[in-house]
C-alpha cells in the first residue's frame, strides 16, 4: 500500500518511514504541509499520515485543502496535541483518525490498516462473516456454525467492530475508542476481560479459535491464525 508521511521532524519521519516500509508499505515523505499537499494531490495514496504542527502549512489546513479539492485519501492525524478538543478539530478538518504523540508503532500500524481497509469497502453490509461465525446487523443476532450465540448489546458492538476489521490487528485503545467511545487508558485490564468473555462465547467448544491475542499489540479476529 502507498502511504504518504507528512512530518517535519526528520527523526520522527525517518522512524515512521522505516517502520512502515518494514511492514510492507511503499512510503513517500514530505517535510511540510505545502509539499505534503502537493504530493497528496499528485500521487495516488492509500492513506496519509499527517503531523499537525508543521512549517509553511499546518496539518489541519493541508487536509482541509485536500478535502476542498475533492481528494478523498484517508488521513490519520499524528499530533502532540492529544486532548479531546484537538481530536474533534482534527476530525472536523477532514481527518479520518487521530493519534496522539507519543504513540506505540503497533497502534499506528493497526490504525493505518483499519483506514486502508475501510476505504476499500464502503458498501453497506448487513451481514458479516468470519469463518463459520456470522453476524446479522439487522436482526442483531450472532451464530457460529448455525448455533445461536447470546450476546449482550455491548458484546455485540465489540464483535461487530472486530468482524469489520477481521484479519487486522485491533488495539485496546481502538476498541475503547470505537466500542465505548472513551479516549483514555484505564489502569485496569478492562478490555482484556471483555475480550475473554466474548471469546468464551464465540470460541468455547470449537476446535478452531477465531479471536486471537496479538502480543504487544492487541487482538485479531481471523479464521486462519
Amino acid at each position, binding site marked *: 500500500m502507498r502511504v504518504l508521511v507528512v512530518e517535519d521532524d526528520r527523526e520522527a519521519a525517518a522512524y515512521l518511514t522505516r517502520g512502515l516500509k518494514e511492514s510492507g508499505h511503499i512510503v513517500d515523505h514530505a517535510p511540510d504541509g505545502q509539499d505534503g499537499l502537493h504530493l497528496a494531490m499528485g500521487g495516488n495514496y492509500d492513506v496519509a499520515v499527517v503531523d499537525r504542527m508543521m512549517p509553511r502549512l499546518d496539518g489541519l489546513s493541508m487536509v482541509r485543502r485536500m478535502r476542498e479539492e475533492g481528494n478523498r485519501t484517508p488521513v490519520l492525524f499524528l499530533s502532540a496535541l492529544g486532548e479531546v478538543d484537538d481530536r474533534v478539530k482534527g476530525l472536523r478538518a477532514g481527518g479520518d483518525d487521530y493519534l496522539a504523540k507519543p504513540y506505540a508503532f503497533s497502534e499506528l500500524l493497526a490504525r493505518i490498516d483499519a483506514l486502508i481497509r475501510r476505504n476499500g469497502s464502503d458498501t453497506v453490509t448487513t451481514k458479516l462473516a468470519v469463518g463459520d461465525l456470522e453476524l446479522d446487523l439487522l436482526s*442483531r*443476532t450472532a451464530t457460529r456454525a448455525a448455533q445461536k450465540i447470546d450476546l*449482550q448489546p455491548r458484546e455485540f458492538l465489540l464483535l461487530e467492530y472486530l468482524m469489520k476489521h477481521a484479519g487486522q490487528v485491533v488495539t485496546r485503545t481502538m476498541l475503547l475508542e470505537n466500542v465505548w467511545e472513551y479516549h*483514555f487508558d484505564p489502569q485496569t485490564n*478492562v478490555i482484556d476481560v471483555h475480550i475473554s468473555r466474548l471469546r468464551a462465547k464465540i470460541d468455547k467448544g470449537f476446535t478452531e479459535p477465531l479471536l486471537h491475542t496479538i502480543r504487544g499489540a492487541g487482538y485479531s479476529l481471523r479464521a486462519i491464525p
Partner: protein
Amino acid sequence: MRFLDVFRTATFRLAFAYLCLFAVSVLVLLGFIYWRTAGLMATQSDETIKAEVQGLAEQYKRRLLPGLRAIIIERSSRPGQRTLYLLTSFDGTPLAGNLPQWPPETEITATNWINFTYESGPENDRETRPGRAVQVVLLGGFKLLVGRDMKEVNAVESTIRATLLWALAITGFFGIAGGVWISRNVIKRLEVINRTSREIMSGDFTRRIPVQGNRDELDDLATNLNQMLEQIERLMMGMREVADNIAHDLRTPLNRLRNKLEGAMIGHASREETTQALESAIAEADGLISTFNSLLLIAEAETGAHRDTLELVDLSEVVHDIADLYEPAAEERGIKLIFAAPSRVTVRGNRSLLARAAANLVENALKYSPQGGAVTVSAFVARDDDRPTFSVRDTGPGIPEADRDRVLDRFVRLERSRNTPGSGLGLSLVAAVARMHEAEIKLESAKPGLLATLSFPQVEDAHAPPIAAQARRVLPAPTKAPKVPEPEIQG
C-alpha cells in the same frame, strides 16, 4: 498625593466643567431677578415722571403760567411728597417748586433726562439726596423740571445687587468646594485600587481591592478586578503545580527508564535479556506518558480550560457506561459491581471528563475491595438538597477518620497524593474534575468501606434533552430489536 494634584484629576475636571455650567445658569437666573426687581422700579419711577410732565404741560396749555404755578405750589407742599418740581423763568429765577434752585451738577442724559443731587431736610439736618428728573422748556422761555427722589430706589437697587453678588459668591464657593470634595473622595478610592495593583505587580498576589459595599460603579470595578485576580492566581497556581508535579513525578521514572536502557546496552546480555530490558523500558515510557497525560488533564481541569465545552450530560448514562465497562473486570476479581441509577440525572458538564472521574473512582474502589466485596455505583438526585449526585461505595477497608481529613486535604492540594499505588493521580483528577464542575466532593465511611460522593450544582433547564445523548448513541437504534436484555449489571 498633594492637594494641588486634585485639580489635575479627571473627576475634578468633570466637576469643574459642571461648575461652569452651573455658574452660567445661576448668573442668568440672578440677572433675570435683578432685571425684574431693581430695573422695574427705575422704569416705573421714570414712567411716573413722564406722566407728570405730560399732565403739567396740559395744564400750562390750558391755564397758562398762573395755573401751572398754582398747581406746582399745591403739589410741592403736599406732605411726604417725593416728586420734585421746579419752575423757573428763562433766566433761572425760581417761580415755584420744592427744589430751591436749578440743580447745579446736572448730568444731562439723552432726551432731557438728568441725574443730580440736591439738598433737603430741615435747616440743621441737611442731607444730599440723589434725584432724577426731566427738564422741559415751555413756550415763552419758562423752564420746568419734574423729578423724583432716587435715594430709596437706589438703596433697594444696591441691596438687590449686593444680595445677588453674595449669592453668586456663595454658589461659586460651594461649587468649587463640592467639586474638590467629590473628586478627592473618588480619587482616594481610585488610589486604593492603584496601590493594590502596584502591590500585586510587585509580586504580592494575595492582595485584593477592598470593596466598600455600597454597590456603586467603583465597587463593581473592584469586584470585577478581584475576580480577575482570582482567576489569574488560579492559573498561576495551576502552572506552578504542573511544573512541580512534572519535576517530581517524571524525574524518577525517567531515571529508571534511562537506567534500564543503559543496562540493556552494557554487553554480555543475551538477546533475550536485551529484549526483556527493552520491553520493560517501553512499559516505563508508557507509564510516563500516562502520568504526563493525567497531569496535563488535571491542570486543564483546574484552570477551567474545558469550561466552555460544557453541555447537558445525563449522569445516569455516564455511570451506566462506566459500570458496563468495568463489570467484567469486577467479576473477574470476585467483586460485585452494582449499578443504580433509577432516572435521568442531568448536570452541566464535560461527558468525557465526567466519565474519567467516574472510571477513576470505580478503579479505586475495585482496587481496595476484597474478594467477595461489592462496589455500588449510583447516580441520583439527592433527596435533601435536590442536587444531582454521583457516588461510589465500596466494602474495602475504608479510610480511618483521622486519615480521611488528610486524604481530603490531599484531594484539595493534589501534590502529595503520590504514596498510593498506581500513578497516584486518580483521586487528584477526580478532585480537579469536581472543582471544574463546581461539584462538592465528600469522603465518608460506608461502614465498612468508603463512600465517595460528588454533588453537582443544579441545572435550571434540567428537562431539556442532553445534547450528548443525540450525538452519541451507544446502541444503534433498535430496529426490530430482538430480545436483547438491557445490560443489567448485578454482579
